[in-house]
């Protein structure tokens, strides 16, 4: 794939602890890529290597035909939305957004029109002369976005920008971000530990574990066809089954509740079990069922308050996806 951004063999250590191990990634023009991982997985370090605030120990970063990992942060065609916004408290919203344009000596009248356009894009035109300390978290978030986007970078980096917002505001901002990316059309690289957020927003997800890329695919692919045990358990919930020496992942919603008398089809597995716990989950119930053979399964079923304790389950054999077992990695720093 011809990519816009190419990470080749990136490794990084912090005082003898490896944080990134030989990471290679190609990112396409205009795509919304999320780097997903737990804390300590190295995701922020990877982002900072792209923006220039860390240098890789080995490896290179290329943008198109230019190698950029040797460039200082202020010389890359990359802008960052920082985790706690990092707005300049002594400057107004207008001056914050204009900052990058002034640094590039853009003429004054062009500054005015571009800043106003950028603020309009994030719905913050009413706040031009306010100071950041007078804004709420969500508003600061938007100004930080405008400040980065007004410079028309080829790549926008977002370092867990929504983690400080409460749930409702977060959902709202997620949809605004997605729309914004479509409108602006540039590459977004988004870092988060929240797998739901990653699945909602991304064109592709790069799952990072202890400094290594576990899997890179579209959200749907990652969910339906996880390649490893870690991927299967990190994204969404799953049941882990053994078939001889093969490990399988079976999603809770693929297990159907059936009756004792139903006849199983050729490719269908049937089991009887006892309902151990039923948790109300909104649109569905989550059932914990202990089967006759000792297997414990989590099953997602429609919202139904009263259930018998004796339950019959079945699923299509193909629904159980083969995965590679994950060896226990030492966690990297943090």
């Amino acid at each position, binding site marked *: 794939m011809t990519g816009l951004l190419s990470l080749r063999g990136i490794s990084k250590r912090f005082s003898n602890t490896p944080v990134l191990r030989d990471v290679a990634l190609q990112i396409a023009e205009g795509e919304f890529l999320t780097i997903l991982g737990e804390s300590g997985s190295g995701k922020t370090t990877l982002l900072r290597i792209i923006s220039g605030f860390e240098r890789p120990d080995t490896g290179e970063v290329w943008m198109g035909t230019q190698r950029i990992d040797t460039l200082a942060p202020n010389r890359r065609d*990359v802008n960052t939305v920082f985790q706690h916004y990092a707005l300049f408290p002594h400057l107004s919203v207008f001056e914050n957004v204009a900052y990058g344009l002034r640094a590039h000596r853009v003429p004054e009248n062009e500054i005015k029109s571009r800043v106003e356009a950028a603020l309009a894009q994030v719905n913050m035109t009413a706040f031009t002369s306010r100071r950041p300390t007078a804004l709420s978290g969500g508003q600061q978030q938007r100004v930080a976005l405008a400040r980065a986007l007004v410079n028309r970078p080829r790549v926008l980096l977002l370092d867990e920008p929504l983690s400080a917002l409460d749930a409702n505001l977060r959902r709202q901002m997620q949809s605004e971000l997605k729309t914004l990316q479509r409108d602006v059309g540039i590459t977004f690289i988004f870092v988060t530990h929240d797998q739901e957020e990653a699945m909602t927003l991304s064109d592709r997800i790069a799952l990072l574990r202890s400094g290594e890329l576990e899997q890179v695919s579209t959200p749907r692919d990652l969910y339906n066809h996880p390649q490893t045990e870690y991927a299967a358990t990190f994204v969404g919930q799953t049941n882990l089954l053994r078939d001889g020496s093969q490990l399988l992942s079976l999603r809770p919603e693929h297990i159907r509740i059936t009756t004792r008398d139903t006849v199983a089809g050729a490719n269908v597995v049937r089991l009887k079990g006892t309902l151990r716990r039923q948790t109300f989950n909104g649109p569905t119930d989550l059932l914990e069922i202990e089967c006759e053979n000792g297997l414990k399964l989590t099953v997602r079923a429609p919202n139904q308050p009263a259930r018998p304790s004796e339950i019959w389950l079945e699923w299509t054999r193909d629904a159980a996806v083969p995965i590679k077992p994950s060896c226990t990695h030492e966690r990297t720093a943090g």
Partner: protein
Amino acid sequence: MYSRAYSRLVTIPPLLWVTLFLLIPYLFLFCFSFWQVHAQVIVHSWTLSNYGQLFHNPIYLQVLLRSIRIAASVTLLALCLGVPLAYYVSFRSGTAKNLLYQLVIIPLWVSYLVRAYAWKTILGSNGVLNTLLQYTHLAQHAIGFLLYSPFAVVLTLTHIYTPFAFLPIYASLEHIPRNLIEASQDLGASRSRTFWKVIFPLALPGIVAGATFAFVLSLGDFLAPLLLGGPSGIMISNIVVSLFGAAYDWPLGAAVAVVMLIFVMALIASTERLERKLSFT
């Protein structure tokens, strides 16, 4: 959350002590400034004549102006030395940061007298600097104005008070969130632009505080002028000291002190207001 007894116990003793040993003495000082001295005895007759003397006798104004000039020079030098140093230690010194900070603070703890005396040995006509210059033939004979002059006072006071000025400047630099520096670089700004547009404005309150320290402490200093100032380097505190000593005119001395007090407090009040205005966080 705190009981009456607790509140009383922590407020009353300090209040009493401070009233007895700070407030009342200042009040006494104030009263003394209105009294007079007749034949070596302090007479409690109330008069404004001491203040009159201050304003009519040109020597007091002269000394006050010289003190202000010296204090201003010291402040300027302390800032020129202290601001780049604070920036360097705070932002650019890497792993040496802690060590460098300690190195700046250590002179603060070394006896004032020791440091002033050190300059005396260096600047005298038989002192280290002069003999060095003559030994290396950089000078034909001893340079006289090095010692017993306002120059010596300014040099010594700068030496003493630069670390004082450094402290609040460094503190305000340390308070600047580092992600602001990264944001500035991310947006394309050079090191120079980042300093003048982001770091300096946010450090201004600390710089003003440092300047105030250096100015006020220099203005009221009496040791350096006494050791190194000579007759041309006398400052206003020396006048107070001599009026309370050999010249024996306590009321006049008190009047000078009161004027100093009011001047200093007015200055502090206005710089505090300036600091508040300049503070953005």
